[in-house]
């Protein structure tokens, strides 16, 4: 009995691959010759045949019916890490935009837009406000020759 088991162990792989027609012709002939002579290996071959038949018949996975088209939109191509990064970047941008809007609205409520000669109003307003930020903003709006005049006026 043990001898038969050992025989089965030794030939098992070749028997299975012979059934799968995955052996070289010379090896296949050896297996066929052995099967003719060995009852234990014939039994092994039969067991493998039944096992594969049962697996094929009973353990198949039925895929669901896919009706919706696959979403292959470019925005879904980015990997999760990049999507997270993009999310953070969007959030930061949103915060900056909101902060900017708040700043402008505050600026507009405290400093109404001048009518008439905005240049002289700017000089007055800079003196009144005295804030560096507003001062720089005004400087940016002036042409280079006006900047010199403006700085002289403010200094005086």
């Amino acid at each position: 009995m043990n001898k038969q088991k050992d025989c089965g162990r030794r030939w098992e792989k070749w028997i299975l691959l012979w059934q799968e027609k995955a052996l070289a012709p010379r090896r296949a002939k050896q297996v066929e010759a052995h099967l003719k002579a060995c009852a234990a290996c014939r039994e092994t071959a039969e067991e493998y045949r039944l096992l594969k038949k049962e697996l094929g018949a009973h353990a198949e996975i039925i895929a669901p019916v896919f009706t919706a088209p696959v979403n292959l939109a470019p925005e879904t191509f980015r990997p999760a890490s990049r999507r997270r990064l993009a999310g953070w970047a969007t959030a930061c941008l949103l915060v900056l935009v909101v902060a900017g809007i708040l700043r402008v609205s505050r600026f507009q409520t405290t400093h109404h837009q001048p009518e008439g000669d905005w240049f002289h109003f700017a000089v007055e307003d800079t003196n009144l406000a005295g804030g560096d930020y507003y001062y720089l903003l005004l400087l940016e709006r002036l042409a280079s020759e006006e900047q010199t005049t403006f700085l002289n006026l403010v200094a005086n």
Partner: protein
Amino acid sequence: MDEREFAQALTEHREKVYRLAMRMTGNHQEALDITQETLLSAFQHRRRFRGEARLTTWLYRIGLNHAYACLKRRKQVLIPLDKAQELVDQGRNPAQSFQHKTKAESVRRMVAFLPPRQKAAVHLRIWEGLSFGEVAGVLACRESTARTLYFFGLRKLRERLGETGVKKLEAEA
């Protein structure tokens, strides 16, 4: 092949990818996620597909990598199969249907307990009908290794059934 044709070709193979993912994970929802991720990855990297292998082989390989990643995330390889997965019963009476489902469930469970690479080799060979060369392509190994993985997988199943188990299984049918 332009983008539209490639996307169409991908969608034609999603059932196959789903079946492999389901076999590997045993969970319907994860299998759906893996299928979607696989198709997206394939479309994103479509220029890497040089047409040397079949499109299905390439998709299986991507799907298998996603399935491995999924199993790694769970840190759990051996999992029970999803109860929701039902076989389609055609022309069976309730008693036959029950017996069939019970047996199918037990066979699927046995397969689910195989190591991942053996499970993949057995699945691709038996249910998808791939040649050993193609199985080797999917598993990124040599053909002889694919044959050995397949053999070890089936041997484990045979041992699990016991000496008379296979014949019993046949007799119950």
